[in-house]
């Protein structure tokens, strides 16, 4: 909606000189970043480092979604928040930290639950979406909204000492539903509250989400589409595995989709859209 910037300022050049000189980056890459807008869903263990590296790299517009407030038990991994800001909305707390790092970024906070009613409206203005959420229902919701609005979705997740990363809805690559047409049984889902997670692991995966978003925006390198990166922090081993391309009968991204508007994702998954992931009491 804003007029695209066509020039870098002297301050931009001083600030970003060390990345401007990268091959395939250059002034054009920096301008693309400056004109880009990225939505980060979840300002927790993944969203904090992802936002940090997008803002420091010069992403012009950032949207931050989190319905939750900062708690002391978040601080071991959610490194944008602070002791002082416990009790504040996570999106607002993150915004304060991010603007200290780069006051040029325009940051919009959405301190509420993203759901079937507001998701299309919230997601529409952004170029790329980062799924840094912590529950199954939100992951399906974001996937479907991003497919309908044709936004690439950079998906990260972490639990205990393990992490996973891929990009959905990019090029001929699959969407989340192509890989997971059916949600997992609620009793098989462990959240970070119950299972625990090491902050450095979320840090690694979150920074990688920023990197993939930058690659998508600038058109740099090989984006992690059609591939899934799995990380085992206990052995420090990564594996890059080949996943399927689009599923021809995918309910949302195929040529004849069955799902053409957002559904009730808590009902579909039988789980709440919070990190509690507790089963719905179905009457």
């Amino acid at each position, binding site marked *: 909606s804003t007029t695209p910037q066509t020039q870098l300022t002297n301050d931009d050049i001083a600030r970003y000189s060390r990345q401007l000189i990268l091959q395939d980056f250059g002034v054009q890459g920096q301008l693309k970043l400056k004109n880009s807008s990225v939505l980060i869903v*979840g300002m*927790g*263990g*993944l*969203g904090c480092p992802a936002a940090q590296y997008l803002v420091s790299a010069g992403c012009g517009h950032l949207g931050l979604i989190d319905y939750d407030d900062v708690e002391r038990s978040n601080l071991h991994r959610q490194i944008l928040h602070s002791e002082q800001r416990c009790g504040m909305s996570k999106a607002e707390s993150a915004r304060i930290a991010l603007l200290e790092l780069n006051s040029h970024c325009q940051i919009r906070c959405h301190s509420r639950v993203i759901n079937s009613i507001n998701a299309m409206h919230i997601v529409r203005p952004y170029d790329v979406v980062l799924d*840094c*959420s*912590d*529950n*199954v229902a939100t*992951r399906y919701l974001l996937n479907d909204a991003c497919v309908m609005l044709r936004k690439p979705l950079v998906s*990260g*997740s*972490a*639990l*205990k000492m*393990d*992490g*996973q990363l891929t990009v959905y809805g990019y090029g001929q690559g699959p969407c989340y539903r192509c*890989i*997971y*047409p*059916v*949600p*997992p*049984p609620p*009793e*098989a*889902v*462990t*959240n*970070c509250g119950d*299972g625990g*997670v090491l902050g450095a692991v*979320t840090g690694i995966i979150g920074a990688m989400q920023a990197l993939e978003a930058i690659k998508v925006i600038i058109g740099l390198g090989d984006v992690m589409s059609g591939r*899934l990166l*799995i990380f*085992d922090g206990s052995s420090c081993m990564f*594996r*890059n*595995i*080949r*996943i*399927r391309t689009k599923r021809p009968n995918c309910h949302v991204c195929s040529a004849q989709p069955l799902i053409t508007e957002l559904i009730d994702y808590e009902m579909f998954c039988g789980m709440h859209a919070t*990190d509690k*992931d507790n089963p719905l009491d179905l009457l």
Partner: protein
Amino acid sequence: MDDLKIILEFSAGAELLFGNIKRRQLSLDGNQKWTIANLLKWMHANILTERPELFLQGDTVRPGILVLINDTDWELLGELDYELQANDNVLFISTLHGG
């Protein structure tokens, strides 16, 4: 006939259902044909130590577990009907949802 030797691996929590062992070398009876379907039955009978419903649903793996054969999605290779070859690596990954 010689045994069919394969590597079985588990990642991101799936190992917790199998005695918390992330990597196993298996020697399967070489006189029979081994599809993934047969392998799942063998795993259920022999090494699945915890709640089987968190791994299997009917004859196949439950939603949310990915199966990779030599680092490639089993959906590209015939899924349950894929016939195991010597030295194949079969990896079961739990999907993570946390952040």
